[in-house]
């Protein structure tokens, strides 16, 4: 059907973004293709150095999964900021990623952790890394005839891994003015062996900063260095300003929150002997 009708069809999962957009007449799809009853799209499975999550898995199910929280803790940390109980009970992980709001939490986690998204169509199956999946605001690499099938989340093998997610929003549950996520791994001596961090709400897509994260590796992640890296991040950004926050305020938040999540991730990693 997607091949035949293309852009006239919208896949509907939880409907927590699509139905409001339809109510506001921002989109008027001729067809809705409902995937809610497809159980094959609902799963959480560990294996292959990571965890695979079916696109139609509810956010509330992901939030409550303790095994997943141990392997990919940033998902639960981020979901605490996503909407409300009522929306997480319907909202799906795939829906949030495919919607690709640049200020949304789950796309940011996918970007920070280098998730891989599997797309299917009658032409076949292909995998796209998060950095190539998000191509612009509300825009992804999904072709009109494709369906997001599953998302692979890498699990870091290092015992001393810590992660953190935070954001500033007008009200809890709203989209973030700026959101930040970080994950770091330390060796026995407390030196960083691996680091990643990213920001949402400050660009056309969620952003990660592998070049700057590399500056953290090999160091004990002392506060001064973290602060320096966070300031360097803010200098790279050109966020937009709007009714809720000026560009300058978003830039300020970017530095503050980047520093905050890297330090929180570090402290969590340090607490793991």
């Amino acid at each position: 059907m997607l091949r035949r009708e293309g852009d006239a069809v919208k896949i509907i999962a939880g409907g927590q973004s699509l139905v409001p957009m339809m109510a506001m007449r921002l989109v008027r799809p001729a067809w809705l293709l409902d995937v809610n009853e497809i159980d094959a799209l609902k799963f959480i499975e560990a294996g292959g150095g990571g965890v695979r999550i079916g696109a139609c898995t509810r956010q509330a199910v992901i939030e409550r999964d303790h095994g997943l929280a141990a392997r990919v803790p940033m998902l639960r940390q981020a979901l605490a900021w996503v909407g409300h109980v009522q929306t997480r009970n319907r909202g799906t992980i795939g829906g949030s990623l495919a919607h690709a709001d640049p200020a949304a939490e789950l796309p940011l986690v996918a970007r920070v952790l280098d998730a891989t998204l599997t797309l299917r169509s009658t032409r076949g199956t292909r995998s796209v890394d998060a950095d190539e999946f998000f191509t612009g605001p509300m825009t992804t690499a999904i072709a009109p005839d494709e369906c997001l099938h599953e998302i692979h989340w890498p699990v870091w093998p290092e015992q001393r891994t810590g992660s953190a997610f935070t954001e500033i929003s007008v009200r809890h549950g709203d989209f973030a003015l700026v959101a930040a996520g970080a994950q770091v791994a330390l060796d026995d001596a407390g030196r960083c062996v691996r680091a990643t961090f990213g920001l949402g709400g400050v660009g056309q897509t969620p952003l990660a900063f592998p070049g700057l994260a590399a500056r953290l590796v090999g160091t004990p992640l002392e506060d001064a260095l973290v602060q320096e890296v966070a300031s360097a991040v803010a200098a790279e950004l050109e966020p937009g300003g709007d009714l809720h926050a000026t560009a300058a305020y978003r830039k300020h938040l970017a530095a503050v929150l980047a520093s905050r999540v890297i330090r929180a991730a570090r402290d969590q990693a340090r607490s793991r002997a």
Partner: protein
Amino acid sequence: MTDILYPISIEVNGVMREAHVPARLSLVDWLREELRLTGTHVGCEHGICGACSILFDGEPIRSCLLYAVQASGHRVMTVEGLAKADGSPSALQDSFCEAHALQCGYCTPGMLIAAQSLLNTTSHPTDVQIRDAIGGNLCRCTGYQQIVDAVRDAARRLAEEAK
């Protein structure tokens, strides 16, 4: 497209209901206009205000963001389903009256559903848990404090009844 009707079969407050509906009829409109269960309110119609909250397979959701056809084969409970079997108010509803947890009443059905869902899983909720549970429901009258008081009071009553 809109003149095609699709058969649905939904358990509403313990009773199986069958109907034929257009594909784009929202669940809340079906509940209110077809079943005349007008306790569930329609506020913003785009998933912000929480007034249309219902229990869907036991979990709170927004019924303005679900089409009636999508609910077919599922279980729905509306605010009308909260009262005791004899029709008298539930402990939670009673606590709402006692604590003056409603003024205009527009948000109340959604608040009751959200709060009842919390009480179903959490017998001794903290104020933080209560505020989190009703965080997706807007109230423009009470300033929320009386609602939090009411939910806390209901939890206490239910714990006493359980003794």
